[in-house]
């Protein structure tokens, strides 16, 4: 059980905090039902929250709580269907982020009962008034393991570290662009999906600002035509056709040293790549297909990972004399937090456009026929982007991450779910999270449940092929 992580959505964290701190200064209790991301890293994903009503507690004091066991049964019923872990949470209104003797004694009575009901992993957690959470897990032999990181993916990104639990400043975020930020980033793992035009620039920034673990998922190989826009690519890479992911990891090793950058030279639509992505703390999506964006969107939801998505386009128009002219130079940055609006909710892709993109690739004739029939609307070709635009967009993307993890904006981050800039009209527009509608998301905290992401193509094959 190496360095476990507990991830919560901002939505669920807010509900938990509101329940544990109703304002009366007394302890309160709740239960988290957690699914698991695929290994090897143990990432528990809070899927559901059961709150214990204040009125039903036999004892509720400033330093003591006694609540009815029927809520344990409710948790067991929910957890056993998908083999989930149960984590009992209560508040310490006094601000002590340490498990007390009473907490230890209680766990030693309750945990064996939970294991009797099922599962191989359960735990308990405490929250202090500053919002900090500390969690520990038990195995069947009641061997205790501390959760190294509790991450909360909301409008802001919160990271509560076991090693900082004793520090009074534990709930405060380090200052942006300063050494505290670099120090924390060194403990975090970033996955960059797509290492081409915008991806290589994003990856360069991620490596330089100090992510401790950088992973590049990209199936393509370096070609000569890429050299004008992919950072770190060389003539030698183009001549050899080095996979872009590998090229980039090698380049990062020259300035960050070994053990920091890792290549996954596969398409994000493969099971292996999805499993690799599931291990990370932050996702940067720098791809050029709707299919890949859909995958990134689902990975974010299923494994409760914050996702930063970037897209650029240079639409053109025809002048009266028939020549082409720039219509606009656009960039779009979306911050997606699991539990709120997804890229699909925001209309970046849809079941129709995904099918159309598949058809255009797999059967251009059939696609053309459907376009002519008027069923598929003409798809806007993304213009070949250029490095100046890519850098502007990738920089905005990484600044969006910094703003979420190390808040520096004067206003609430909530107002900036989407940023769009237009260089021709010199406009920048922001869309608040509330402006997007949110459809029910069955993939949320789906974890390792098969098929991965709910897509049969990513599942362990049930039927053998012949």
């Amino acid at each position, binding site marked *: 059980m190496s360095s476990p992580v507990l991830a919560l959505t901002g939505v669920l964290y807010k509900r938990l905090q509101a329940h544990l701190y109703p304002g009366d200064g007394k302890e309160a209790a709740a239960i988290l039902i957690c699914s698991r991301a695929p290994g090897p890293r143990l990432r528990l994903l809070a899927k559901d929250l059961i709150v214990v009503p204040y009125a039903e507690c036999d004892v509720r004091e400033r330093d003591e709580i006694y609540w009815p066991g029927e809520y344990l049964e409710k948790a067991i019923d929910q957890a056993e269907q998908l083999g989930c872990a149960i984590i009992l949470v209560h508040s310490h209104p006094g601000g002590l982020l340490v498990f007390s003797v009473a907490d230890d004694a209680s766990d030693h009575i309750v945990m064996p009962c939970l294991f009797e009901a099922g599962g191989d992993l359960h735990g308990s957690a405490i929250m202090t008034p500053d919002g900090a959470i500390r969690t520990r897990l038990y195995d069947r032999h009641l061997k205790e393991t501390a959760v190294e990181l509790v991450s909360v993916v909301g409008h802001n990104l919160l990271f509560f570290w076991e090693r900082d639990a004793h520090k009074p400043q534990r709930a405060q975020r380090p200052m942006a662009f300063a050494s505290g930020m670099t120090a924390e980033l060194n403990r975090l793992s970033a996955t960059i999906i797509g290492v081409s035009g915008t991806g290589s620039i994003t990856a360069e920034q991620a490596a330089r600002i100090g992510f401790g673990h950088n992973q590049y998922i990209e199936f393509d190989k370096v070609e000569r035509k890429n050299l004008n826009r992919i950072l770190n690519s060389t003539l030698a890479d183009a001549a050899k056709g080095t996979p872009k992911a590998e090229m980039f990891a090698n380049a990062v090793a020259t300035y960050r040293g070994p053990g920091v950058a890792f290549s996954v030279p596969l398409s994000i639509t493969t099971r292996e790549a999805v499993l690799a992505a599931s291990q990370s703390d932050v996702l940067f999506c720098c791809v050029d297909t709707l299919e890949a964006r859909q995958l990134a969107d*689902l990975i974010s939801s299923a494994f409760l990972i914050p996702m930063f998505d970037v897209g650029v386009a240079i639409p053109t128009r025809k002048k009266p004399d028939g020549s082409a002219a720039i219509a606009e130079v656009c960039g779009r940055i979306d911050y997606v937090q699991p539990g709120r609006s997804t890229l699909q909710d925001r209309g970046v892709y849809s*079941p*129709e456009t995904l*099918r159309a993109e598949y058809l255009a690739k797999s059967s251009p004739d059939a696609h053309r026929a459907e376009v002519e029939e008027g069923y598929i609307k003409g798809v806007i070709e993304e213009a070949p982007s250029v490095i100046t635009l890519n850098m502007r967009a990738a920089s905005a993307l990484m600044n969006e991450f910094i703003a979420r993890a190390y808040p520096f904006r004067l206003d609430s981050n909530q107002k900036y779910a989407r940023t769009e800039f237009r260089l021709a009209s010199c406009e920048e527009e922001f869309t608040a999270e509330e402006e997007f509608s949110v459809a029910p998301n069955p993939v949320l905290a789906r974890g390792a449940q098969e098929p991965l992401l709910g897509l049969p*193509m990513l599942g362990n*094959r*049930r039927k*053998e092929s012949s």
Partner: protein
Amino acid sequence: MTIQENAPEHRAAGQAIEVADENLNFRQVLINDATPSGTQISRGAGFSPAQQTAVLQFHPDGDLEEIRPNESADLSIGRQFIVVETDRLFFLTINGVRFDWPARTISSEVVRKLGKIAPDDELLLTRIDQPDRAIEPHEVVDLGHRGTETFVSRQRVWKLNVQGVVLELNEPTIVVRKAVELAGFDITKRWQIFLIVKGEPKRAVGLDYTVDLRTPGIEKLRLTPDGVHNGEAVAKPRRQFDLLEVDEKHLDALGCFWETVLDADRRWLLIHHYQVPAGYASQIVLLGLEIPPTYPGAQIDMFYTSPPLRLTSGRAIDRTQVSAVICGTSFNGWSRHRGPEAPWNPRTDNVITHLALVESAIAKEVGQ
């Protein structure tokens, strides 16, 4: 001689006409008159004045008109005549056109010639209160009964029984592959195929063998699987990609034979022996649904059938012109799309809900 003297203007050059007997065997006859009378034609044909003859002139439209003994024939209308010894005319109609016929009997060949009936079409004699009777080659029909004999022709239908499915074909030959496909059997399966001819031992034939349905005694094509596999899985379906678990359970529960196949870059769910309602030429088809890789995130749309579904009413089915070749077999696609009011929902839509759309689209065309 009297005629020649009285009508010197008619003595011009000899006029060539053709004269036939009741079997329509024509021969050339020269007549020294541009407007010969019935009697002149009869004489020219070699009949004596004592013989009672009927003279009939062919009109360009095929009609026959009697020329009476002292009536003049207009050679500009036509130069073909029938001259037969008889004292009366008999009446018949061929495909609704009336003919006066100078003999009591007529052969099927003559009826075909008169009615310009294609050699492959069937000739029938309609009868009251009885089924129409097919007139065989060389058969002679007696026209001496009361009433007018009515002949009709129709496109010949050749029947071939393929494993119990009777095909009605308008061509006298068919390739085995096509016959098996038309009967709704999956030719990608390995079959042993036998041609059964009455009184002959069964003959194994390949998919490319051409069956000549004019051969007497052809009864049927019989199919046997190329091997008998006992056990629950009779044939091993191809499962080259997975569907959702609920889809697979549903398809299994329907008891249908289904496969998932990859063909080039396209991904297909094939449902064999898919039953369609009455009103279609074939009742059993192979149904294909295209499943994009990120299904159910990406939607399923349209559907494909092989053979193409045709309505027995002959009416064309709207928007079914898209074609696709799946693993070498031709399919045609039905452009049936979800409207904006009922878009695909990845949470609730799947193969099962799409099959419901397929079913209703197919039923709609036959008014069900």
